[in-house]
């Protein structure tokens, strides 16, 4: 649906779809409490949905409307939700990892320094295979293990960083091995199987919550579409794509549920229909939502808008009620 909307011009810029990787997001995030936090990359729509951000808010944000979760100011790559503790949405790979480590640091600080005894919040940092060669990743593995922070580093290894194959970019492609080098467990899991991911996630999250420190989890997964909607996706071998398409996590779960008599075809079709309705509703809502007003351009730059300085009349600019209606001159 996002792709359709993009090609119809409702969405623009960079949009990175998550098709094929759903098992990782669901397997991990559905185990979290509302107070736990998630930090993601630009491929963050599904992490937002899993964490509880309403579909309408996500779709509106993608359309750049004022009813979006960030009032249209963030966009596809920068989804934030204070209520659901989704801390972004970062475009630079690796950027989210230190921020996630900081959130985990805060959880520990609140318990030990601010004496909030029940603060055992866990943070999940999601990032890809390309990020695992980035300096910030190693810096944070070190500090998280050093300070025993309540964090799980979740690698969504989909084997490709835009057009750069993981094998061409990495000296030792087995990412989970990097965990023990820094003093934390490193686990590899089949990221196309949501139940396997969930089992591993349970252990890692429990470990963090009990104060034993971080874990590095490598989820072997695959994105069915290109890196972004602008990616012609010419470099990936069709045989590889077919191999992973056959392991579609949603289809696999459907099969599992039916074979184990946990749900019937009819029930699953009803869920499918419900999802379609939610998506259609979200698109309709986003379409009908208003664009941001002109005055929104200058809003939210600062929490304390005195940062805009003093105007020619000697008063702080933000104290002028007409401040946000101005032109670039303001």
């Amino acid at each position, binding site marked *: 649906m996002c792709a359709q909307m993009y090609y119809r011009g409702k969405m623009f810029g960079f949009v990175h779809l998550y098709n094929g990787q759903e098992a990782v997001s669901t397997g991990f995030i559905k185990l979290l409490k509302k107070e736990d936090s998630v930090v993601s990359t630009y491929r963050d729509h599904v992490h937002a949905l899993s964490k509880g951000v309403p579909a309408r808010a996500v779709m509106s944000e993608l359309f750049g409307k004022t009813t979006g979760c960030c009032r249209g100011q963030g966009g596809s790559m920068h989804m934030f939700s204070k209520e659901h503790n989704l801390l972004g949405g970062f475009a630079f790979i690796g950027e989210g990892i230190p921020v996630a480590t900081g959130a985990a640091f805060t959880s520990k600080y609140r318990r030990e320094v601010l004496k909030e005894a029940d603060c055992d919040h866990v943070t999940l940092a999601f990032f890809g295979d390309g990020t695992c060669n980035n300096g910030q990743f190693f810096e944070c593995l070190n*500090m998280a293990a050093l300070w025993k922070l309540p964090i799980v580093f979740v690698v969504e290894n989909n084997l490709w960083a835009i057009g750069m194959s993981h094998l061409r970019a990495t000296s030792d492609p087995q990412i989970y091995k990097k965990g023990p080098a820094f003093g934390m467990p490193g686990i590899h899991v089949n990221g196309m199987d949501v139940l396997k991911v969930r089992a591993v996630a349970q252990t890692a999250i429990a470990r963090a919550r009990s104060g034993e420190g971080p874990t590095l989890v490598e989820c072997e997964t695959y994105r069915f579409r290109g890196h972004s909607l602008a990616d012609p996706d010419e470099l990936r071998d069709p045989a590889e794509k077919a191999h992973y398409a056959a392991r579609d996590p949603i289809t696999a779960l459907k099969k599992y549920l039916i074979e184990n008599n946990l749900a019937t075809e009819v029930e699953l079709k009803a869920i499918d229909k419900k999802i379609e309705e939610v998506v259609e509703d979200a698109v309709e809502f986003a379409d009908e939502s208003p664009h941001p007003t002109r005055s929104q351009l200058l809003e939210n730059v600062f929490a304390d808008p*005195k940062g805009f300085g003093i105007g020619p009349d000697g008063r702080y600019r933000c104290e002028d009620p007409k401040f946000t209606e101005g032109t670039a001159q303001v």
Partner: protein
Amino acid sequence: MTVREALNSALDEEMSADPKVFLMGEEVGEYQGAYKISKGLLDKYGPERVLDTPITEAGFTGIGVGAAYYGLRPIVEFMTFNFAMQAIDHIINSAAKSNYMSAGQMNVPIVFRGPNGAAAGVGAQHSHCYAAWYGSCPGLKVLTPYSSEDARGLLKAAIRDPDPVIFLENELLYGESFPVSAEALDSSFCLPIGKAKIEREGRDVTITAFSKMVGHSLKAAEILEKEGISAEVINLRSIRPLDRATINASVQKTNRLVTVEEGFPQHGVGAEICATIVEDSFGYLDAPVERIAGADVPMPYAANLERMAVPQVEDIVRAAKRVCHRSVPLAAAA
């Protein structure tokens, strides 16, 4: 009180007042601070609030930002702002822009502080001035204290501020002593962000400066006084937001302007002030604006070359005279 003592007392008082304030950086704890600014704080507040970090600017700056997202109030010390370049992605992209990208959900009450600009003989990679770099970025507040009173008042204001603040100190000023009023010693003392201070009033020429150059400008003003030129010296205190109102009011009074900064000339603070004057006070100028800046070269090591690469008092005096008497500019005379 020395600037060092002023900064130390400000950190101490703010950490004492709010348990959410903590300090992190290289050597801030057991070493008592690379420049001894955080002396005594580890003993007083413990290793959970005064964190010695590994040498990982990008990592620990990002950690500070993540903590700030949750309402802790980190003070991230960079041994010098040159090293902050390793972390500049976090300063700009995850700190400065987050309140905007999240439409007000994620404000970032963080302070990035450390020495900025030239020191003595430390070479090209340790002498860069970043005032213009951070001054151009929306979402940041950028402060440049000069005296001990500035250091105390502005640092306390920065720590209490709900937005990311870049606090550019100067290594050579740490040991300088300034008189401080009783009011400045009070624990609730704060200076407003965005207001410049007129250090010395004058009638004939306005000299704007920040950080160490304020001292040079005041000395230049004394020399000029003896030669019959009354200079008004403005201590900018705040690079972003820039106090355009004070600068313009001053130029509208004196009709002449000399901007002084230590950093590189192109796209510098002086260039911005010049543009401001042209926009708001063009008709008041009796002479073109003179820009005094550091030489447009990476900082040399040799002592005599370094002296030539950084503005000296004589350069400011010469520029003020040029702007007052319209004598031939140095470059044209060469």
